[in-house]
């Protein structure tokens, strides 16, 4: 009783929070996508989730940001149980999610996209300051601030989507396939950005098929196969693992 009250009384510890999944089962209707996933991301850490198509990576992120409710298992962030938190309250708790395919609002300008990202009352108060920070991070966005988001290149759109997610001043950033559909040179730019973001101290959980790139950015990674954790470890260990190399790194 008192423990439950405690976690609610201090939901936003300034030092950031640990994301902790334990025994998560989830799916869509009758289709089960995740079978007992346990995963942990410490504050300041960058963690990757890799695996083939259909392994349940996107589902995992959707569970964390509340778009899908787990059927079993627990989900905690900073000690707080998120099982009953409505998804739209998560940005205010410090969880930002850059969804698969970016999902920008193509008919809004870059700056309007950032504005939607700053919708929660707490974020509105800091809009100008955070916007300027995003523009520092992505100077191109500043040049294009009045351009419709849909008219930009894929890489620019990915940066805009990350910028939009940063507008709520998150403690953890969830990135879903940030490299999907981008040219190799752009992929490199995107991962450089991710590295800079985490160097500023932000916790990052990144889901990727581009295993080689992601292992260069993250500290640790989980390998997901058909909804289960098949392997986990430090990125250097995984990169060296022959089985992983064979399956995901093309054996080079």
């Amino acid at each position, binding site marked *: 009783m008192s423990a439950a009250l405690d976690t609610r009384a201090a939901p936003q510890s300034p030092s950031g929070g640990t994301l902790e999944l334990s025994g998560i089962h989830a799916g869509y209707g009758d289709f089960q996508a995740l079978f007992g996933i346990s995963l942990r991301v410490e504050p300041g850490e960058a963690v990757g989730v890799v695996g083939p198509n259909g392994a349940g990576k996107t589902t995992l992120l959707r569970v964390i940001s509340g778009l899908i409710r787990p059927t079993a298992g627990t989900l905690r962030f900073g000690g707080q149980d998120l099982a009953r938190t409505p998804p*739209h309250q998560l940005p205010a708790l410090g969880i930002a999610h850059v969804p698969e395919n970016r999902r920008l609002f193509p008919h809004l300008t870059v700056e309007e996209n950032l504005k*939607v990202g700053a919708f929660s009352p707490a974020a509105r108060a800091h809009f100008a300051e955070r916007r300027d920070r995003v523009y520092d991070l992505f100077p191109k966005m500043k040049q294009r601030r009045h351009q419709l988001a849909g008219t930009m290149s894929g890489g620019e759109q990915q940066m805009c989507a990350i910028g939009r997610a940063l507008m709520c001043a998150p403690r953890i950033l969830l990135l879903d396939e940030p490299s999907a559909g981008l040219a190799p040179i752009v992929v490199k730019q995107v991962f450089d950005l991710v590295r800079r973001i985490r160097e500023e101290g932000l916790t990052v959980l990144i889901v990727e098929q581009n295993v080689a790139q992601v292992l260069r950015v993250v500290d640790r990674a989980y390998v997901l196969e058909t909804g289960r954790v098949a392997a986990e470890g430090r990125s250097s260990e995984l990169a060296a693992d022959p089985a992983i190399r064979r399956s995901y790194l093309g054996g080079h």
Partner: protein
Amino acid sequence: MDPFLLEAIVNGILLGGVFALPALGLNLVFGVVDVVWLCYAELVMVGMYAVWFLYTQLGWPLPLAFGACLPVVALLGVLLHLLVVRPLLAAPPINQVLATGGVLFLLQGAMTLIFRTDFRSLGVDMPPMEVGEIFVSGTKLAAFCAALLGAAVLWAFLKFTYVGTAIRAIARDREVMPLMGVDPQRIYLIASAVGGALAGLAACLLVVQLDVHPFVGLSFGPITFMICVMGGLGNMLGGFLAAFLMGIIVSVGGFWGTTEFSYVVAFGFFIVTIFARPRGLFAR
């Protein structure tokens, strides 16, 4: 130019202003909530009764009655959303349409019970203006200006506020909204209130031009739907422009042909639009 033709064109533009507000409101709600309020013209009708009642029966000053009409109809929009639309959000569109269609008859019936079928008039009239050889109704011109003003305020709301920006965003991608910290249910509610307020404003502008009776929605409801579809359902700017286009078609068509013929032209144009540009005349 033939002064009478010019008068017909001017009247068409003024008429477009009258159609524009309900078209905007209907499009706003459809764009955000993805449900067609079939009873939209009846919300306007209730607003017209509200103004008539406050002004002629309770003796309120007219501006005050107008001022009260907006929140009253906005509240009606909120209730419509909470009681009828929200429980059916996951239902097939046909159920939603049938339900709001049911509200249409409910409102007609309720107003018939309360006010009977009598035609009610405010008895307010502004003097006509004679510009050169053409006559312009002062009432219509005032209504037109108020409609433009209302549209401008709506535009500013959608363009510059957080909620307005979220409304424009949700019209394109509702699933991603929670990730932005936006509660879609709240946006639906706000859009319903704004849609209701627009119906209230339309009521203020119409009540000075048309008599109020429980079936007055028939006069402008169907054409409002046509305008929305022509402009592209959910496309606010498209609907706004289509309202003026329709006003001019009806007016000039009636001038060259007959009043009846003008509606044939308007409907013909509508049908051609549906086939030629099913996403609306102004779809990008």
